[in-house]
């Protein structure tokens, strides 16, 4: 019996960093599997490429920094790659995934010092950088071609789509709902006409529509998010604040002028909002530490998303909104702190009262 005295606590939670990452990955699985089902082998290839290259870049950076490669086991690189892949156009060529992973891991995370040190969400940083650098590839939205449908590419075709330049892709593509609405509105068309024959709200919630690889199914993302909350990995303050603020903003504008402003339910069910609310904005590293701070963070994200979607140059603004609020996180944490027991908010002792 050799005992080294140490101070308490002598016990700890089962929760470990790697198990947290694993559970988040588990929570995004339904939406991802659905995305692969919708968009076929190319989507699967893109996911694998992005995740594998993220891990390779992480390994490379760890070697360079002289850190033990056992850090890879924390699963954070896999998660970053996975989240990035979810937000990419499903038939994006292989190099989009690789370049994106590189930006996420190297510029988004490791240059700051690795896990926990980054200011911006790595996946969103890479997503936005890709969008600005490669606007064509990042806005090529493939039609829904589920496995078993006539247009679904087989495995070999899938590899060709991913690894070779495909020239006649235009036949299979179209705009996302938000993109379509933005274009049409700019041509002075009115919403009821634009949305006619384009869209049913069920499809939008379930996700049978064009969009990023695993962002189309609002319901499955919601399920994953609720499960994460049930597992106490995330709390719902950020998602709730974010969804509610988008809902309220769009409700007010839609009520004021339904011909020009989308209904709140379309806002909630389309684009990257659900994914960002539950899986991107809730990233521990880049979001505030206190519940109050998280509510402010989430609400501001939501308002920014609504503003960018409605008046901005891009049809979707989730990535930009999250990054902007990431930058504001240290400020929020500086001003919003929990009150210390026995002290007021300014840190002075409370007045004694019996």
């Amino acid at each position, binding site marked *: *019996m050799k*005992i*080294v*005295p*140490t*101070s*308490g*606590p*002598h*016990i*700890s*939670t089962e*929760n*470990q*960093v790697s*198990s*947290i990452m694993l559970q988040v990955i588990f929570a995004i699985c339904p939406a991802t599997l659905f995305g692969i089902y919708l968009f076929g082998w190319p989507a699967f290839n893109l996911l694998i490429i992005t995740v594998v290259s993220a891990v390779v870049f992480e390994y490379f950076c760890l070697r360079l920094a002289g850190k033990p490669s056992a*850090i890879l086991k*924390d699963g*954070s690189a896999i998660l970053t790659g996975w989240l990035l892949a979810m937000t990419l156009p499903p038939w994006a060529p292989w190099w989009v995934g690789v370049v994106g992973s590189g930006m996420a891991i190297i510029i988004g995370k490791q240059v700051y010092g*690795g*896990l*926990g*040190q980054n200011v911006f969400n790595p996946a969103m940083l890479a997503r936005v950088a890709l969008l600005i650098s490669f606007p064509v590839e990042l806005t090529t939205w493939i039609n829904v071609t589920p496995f078993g449908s006539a247009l679904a590419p087989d495995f070999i075709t899938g590899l060709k789509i991913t690894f070779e330049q495909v020239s006649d892709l235009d036949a299979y593509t179209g705009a996302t709902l938000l993109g379509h609405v933005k274009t049409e509105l700019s041509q002075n068309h009115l919403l009821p006409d634009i949305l006619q024959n384009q869209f049913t709200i069920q499809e939008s919630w379930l996700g049978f529509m064009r969009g990023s690889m695993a962002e189309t199914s609002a319901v499955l993302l919601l399920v994953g998010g609720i499960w994460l909350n049930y597992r106490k990995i995330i709390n719902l303050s950020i998602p709730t604040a974010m969804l509610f603020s988008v809902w309220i903003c769009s409700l007010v504008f839609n009520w004021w002028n339904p011909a020009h402003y989308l209904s709140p339910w379309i806002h909630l069910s389309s684009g990257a909002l659900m994914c960002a609310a539950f899986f991107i904005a809730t990233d*521990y*590293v880049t979001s505030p*530490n*206190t*519940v109050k701070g998280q509510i402010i963070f989430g609400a501001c994200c939501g308002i920014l998303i609504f503003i960018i979607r409605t008046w901005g140059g891009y049809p979707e603004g989730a990535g930009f909104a999250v990054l902007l609020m990431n930058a504001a996180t240290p400020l929020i944490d500086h001003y919003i*702190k*929990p*009150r*210390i*027991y*026995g*002290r007021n908010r300014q*840190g002075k*002792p*409370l*007045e*004694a*009262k*019996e």
Partner: protein
Amino acid sequence: MISLVEKMRIRGGVHAEENKKQTANQPIQTELPLDTKLYIPLQQHVGKAAEPIVRVGDKVLKGQLLAHSQGMISAPVHAPSSGLIADINFYPAPHPSALPIRTIVIETDGKDEWCELKPVNDPFSLDPEEVSLRVGAAGIVGMGGATFPSAVKLNLGRKSKIHTLLINGGECEPYLTCDDRLMRERAEAIIDGIRIMLHGMGVKKAKIGIEDNKPEAIALMKKACEPFPDIYVITVPTRYPMGWDRQLIRFITGSEVPAGSRATDVGVLMHNVATAYAIHRAIRFGEPLVSRVVTVSGKAAKRTINMEVPIGTSISHLFSITRVDPDKTARIVMGGPMMGESLPHSDLPIVKATSGVLALTHDEIKTGTEQPCIRCASCISACPAGLLPVDMANRIKSNQLDAAVSIGLKDCISCGTCSYVCPSNIPLVHYFKYAAGELVARQQAQHKSEQTKKLVEERNNRMERIEQEKAEEAARRKAAKEARDREKAEKARLAAEKEAAS
């Protein structure tokens, strides 16, 4: 809505795996083989160590005074069993360091013979001061682990006109069930002890807080306090560290103890249930505090039990009773697993503060390697004091202790909740304990350098003064000499004039 309000009253905390069922249904055993030697440290309390009044070779009876208290804050020590005083010397203390501490060793004679006791039939006819005196003479200290002399607290309660006595039956530490068993088996005695305390402080009302994971104890205690309308049992949520006095005070009374103030400033005072029981024994039966209920648990122990153990019994004796497997034992913890101290070996005595001894296996203890912080903020939401453990640790890491103090380091209660919840296994509370120690050391160093500076300054002043005095003295002498010379010259002149005249 009410539950919402209740929730607001406790902040942070964790619901750790309780591990109480191993011992919760084990009645308190009293008929256990007596240890052949009892090691009774003279300091088992906050304050000054007791001073022995016995000599080696003396025969003592159980309950006999061995060492009397010293000064205002101290507590006497009594013989836990009858026998011979074998030694009065320095022996390892039940502390992680196991540094030597002055200890009386009794070789037990196995008779366990009580000395003459002075029971009180009607404690309520005693003067309140007399209650405090007797409690003090019985060597009773806070049995929840704080070990503050109870008599001092009773006096404080009497002087500061508190309105409610709070009794801590929370027992929020995992594994421990000694208070639970005590409440289940000796509820009437505890209530009697509470009534005696109320009498001793001149207070009417008492509230007993018990965590809701002890339904049997709650039911029995409620039944026991039925005849007394001013004593209530209050069910509190199971949430470590519910037993932190200030957490319990806020939950039960709704008022928060201001930073830097005492509980009495909000009109309450808190004692532990085991202390109430000890006071009952001390006043009603005249028995000093010579034994306590201890939980022995942990997966390395084949038998997990609660037992009433004479103070000074060695832990290895308890381990042989509970058949602890030394090969499986990865850590010996005295107290609960959250705030308890790990001991280097088992040849250390049970003291008044020992609520439990745990023989933990490797699977039970925290062993994960430290990983980078992912800012999950679990520590922030878990901190019962409302601190920012992650930020404090970062500041301490970069040696900015003052910055850590400015965000609340001194309000840390070292409950360890932050370290418990951290998924990256960062030893947060260790940083805070280190920083607290380092701050004291720095203050001492600063004090020392200031003292030195002062002494040097004084010396310089003194030297200057001496120089000045010397100079003045010299000047005076010179002046005197000149005066003398002038006088001489004058005299000579006068004499010359006289001569010339004559």
